[in-house]
């Protein structure tokens, strides 16, 4: 599944997502786009963190928020909320 989401007043997020249709477990995810994240490696780390997690809106947003705080990540043009929105657009329900 793929989604393209233009963050209001922000950058573009492109999500490439594979998940198990019955369990809603994320099998693989790529968070791509023209945004900025510091340090850059944090996006790959976040993708790893999200792998194996359930495709659940509030759960995902909470996890991304915690990840940002724990790892001292700075986003420009995206946010935990907008990444979550972009991911949920890949879900077909």
């Amino acid at each position, binding site marked *: 599944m793929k989604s*393209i989401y233009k963050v209001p007043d922000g*950058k*573009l997020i*492109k999500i*490439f997502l594979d998940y198990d249709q019955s369990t809603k477990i994320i099998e693989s995810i*790529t*968070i*791509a*786009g*023209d*945004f*900025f*994240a*510091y*340090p*850059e490696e944090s*996006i790959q780390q976040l993708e790893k963190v999200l792998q194996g997690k359930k495709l659940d809106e509030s759960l995902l947003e909470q996890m991304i928020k915690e990840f940002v705080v724990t790892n001292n990540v*700075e986003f*420009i*043009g995206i946010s935990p909320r907008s990444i979550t929105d972009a991911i949920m657009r890949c879900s077909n329900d």
Partner: protein
Amino acid sequence: MTEEWRLLQTGHLSAAENMAIDRAILVAHSKGKVPPTVRFYGWNPAAISIGYFQQLTEEVDLTACEKEHVEYVRRITGGGAVFHEDEVTYSFVIKENHPHISKNILESYKTICQAIMNGLDRFGVKTAYAPINDILVNNKKISGNAQTRKQKTVLQHGTILTDVDVDKMFRLLKVPNEKIKGKLIATVKERVTSLTHELQKDFSFDDVSNSLKTGFEETFDISLVHGTLSAEEQKLAESFEKTTFGSKEWNHQR
């Protein structure tokens, strides 16, 4: 006494060489081996650079690139895809704790873009900063910029369009929706400009880089002294070119 920073003029190089040199300067400066550095360069052949987080084949038509002899490279900085042809590209490397640079990333974008704007103002165009990373002339984009911070060092690079061929750009870049491609091209033509378009005359690389040099000197109250890459930087750049920016693993990593 005015602080002296290094000025590099490295000419027009391949995409992989250009990105390798920027990274080499970052590494050398982070170790305190070279002064803060402003570099001006161009691209030969023309090239597309994509942002660190972009998916290559999603953004770039690789077949079209091959046909038109345009190279492509993934940057270490975030941001969007850029078609580099008729432009002056700069890079600026400085320690994060230098008194002239803000710890705050957004603030530092603004300060460095101000140096570019001060340089462009010398041509008599009216520039405006469009946060986070664009510079406008007459409400149209003339410059895009991207920053990374690694090893407590800031690297910001960006482009100043001297001329632009939007149709060629869209032969090389992919758009999310082919159906609205025509409309998108028309919009971009309205929203992007260049020095030649604004002032109806040709600009040489040196005209532009000389003005930008003065822009940096005024903004940071320093003087830029012509220099060359150190032997260590050259070695680093050769290595980065081979192992990173010239490699399929790096460019196709996502």
